[in-house]
């Protein structure tokens, strides 16, 4: 996940160029913008709408429909910890409490210094070796065992 920064049309144009030939380019462009800027700012919505000849409402509709697109900046690192059934069966609740304590931030919140965001996610497809989490998209498993230390190392703690 990117570092949140201000929207830059020139940079956005460079990122969007790669997808300009594509049919259905909206999602790939939004992914690219979020990857670079960390969120989809209102200026970005207007810029994409103009470029793809869509209304701002259409672009906003897509941004708000998909959980991965953010309409406000997240922390510089994003940690998603699985709360689904299989991970619950292997101690996800305890792991979540430990992460909250070690990272100093509650589930669903961003640290005041914007260093990180801790979020729930429902199933990462790591049901066989849960509890599991993603740190900036990188999977960590076995968090009730050795995985927790690795995961915290991945966060830089």
């Amino acid at each position, binding site marked *: 996940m990117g570092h949140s920064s201000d929207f830059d049309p020139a940079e956005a144009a460079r990122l969007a160029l790669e997808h300009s030939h*594509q*049919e*259905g*380019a*909206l*999602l*790939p462009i*939004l*992914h690219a913008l979020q990857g670079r800027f960390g969120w989809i700012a209102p200026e970005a919505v207007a810029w994409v709408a103009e470029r*793809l000849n869509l209304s701002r409402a259409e672009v906003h*509709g*897509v941004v708000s*429909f*998909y*959980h*991965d*697109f953010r309409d406000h900046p997240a922390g510089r690192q994003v940690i*998603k910890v699985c*709360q*689904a*059934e*299989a991970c*619950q*069966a*292997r*101690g996800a*609740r*305890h792991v979540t*409490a430990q992460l909250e304590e070690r990272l100093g931030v509650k589930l669903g919140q961003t640290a005041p210094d914007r260093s990180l965001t801790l979020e729930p*996610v*429902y*199933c*990462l*497809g*790591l*049901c*066989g*070796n*849960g509890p599991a989490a*993603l740190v900036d*998209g*990188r*999977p960590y498993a076995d968090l*009730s065992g050795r995985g927790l230390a690795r995961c915290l190392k991945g966060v830089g703690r």
Partner: protein
Amino acid sequence: MTSDDIIKVVIDSKLRGRGGAGFPAGRKWSFVPKDSPKPRYVCVNADESEPGTFKDRYIMERDPHQLIEGTAIACKSINAHAAYIYVRGELGLAAVRVQQALDECYAAGILGKNVMGSGYALDIYLHRGAGAYICGEETALLESLEGKKGQPRLKPPFPAVEGLFACPTVINNVETLAAVGPIIQNGAAWWTGLSRTEAEGGTKLIGVSGHVARPGVYELPGGLTLREIIFEVAGGMRNPDRKLKAVVPGGTSCPILLPHELDTAYDFDAIKKVGSMMGTGCPAVIEEGTCIVRLLKRIERFYAHESCGQCTPCREGGDWLFKIISRIEAGQGSMADIDKIESVASKIEGHTICAFGEALSWPARSYLKKFREEFVEHVKQKRCPYGPIPVAPVALSGVVA
């Protein structure tokens, strides 16, 4: 091999769709109109995201080339020159590895303008989802590929006639396509011979999770029973002192099974006889001491959150179910609330554009039918009989769900 030859072998192999519906793959391909002047597409549904389902990720991360090979064969069978692999947003590592494999194929001349010198052009594109469970529904996936909100389409027209960009489209699950290469290479008889059941051919990836000793993904012959899978393959219960209480057979949308219902073959047809589904082939095992009401609350929270909002019964009903079940779980429910679950759930099922309505009402109805006494106990005792939600390490705790 001609397109018809490929389709015949796949039909004869009895390969069925591994995304959950179990539709025969070869027959699906045969529905694409041969005389359509439009381009055709193959879409790979790699949006595996129902909680408890974790087999496609394994294929994409460990052997993406097998998926690409099957996708290319499917394209050839319907004369498609472009395919899209729609990978779920959360499966980042899988997406990286599939893209790497695609790049290798282009570099080796296996994909591109002239596939292995045959003169056949084929492009395969990777497309990332963005965290919406509903995009695993095939027509929602098409909408999402077109750059729109992932809201399912009314069928008919079916995608084979009018799919991606209103062109004939075949949509298959990752595991289904990964099986195609070996079937073409070794023949239909070889594949059917790998299965213990008549209903379908081959082996199946089974992802066992929950309270078992050895959770994981296993490749097993088709038609084993759930009892064999849980107690012989996955090593039985994690805590031998706790008996098996129930099994969610194939993703959280599938009706729950009781211990005495585990002896039918775990295939698409047989499991229907006990009123459930094989779904994605990923059973979650639940031990004694687990609160079923709490489990259902968690499941309904997920579905209420993931409804695309298009159909009122699902958008509103999912939230109602979650609220009613939460109330009961917190010890604040009434006996009327219990009946309300059935009343609301029965009005969602069958009244929505896609099967999401079923996915959220089936667990509610089946858990209530099979564990009604637990709901009643919550109301009578005005609390969860299993005690408050523990946060202690799992090895010390009794209650999970």
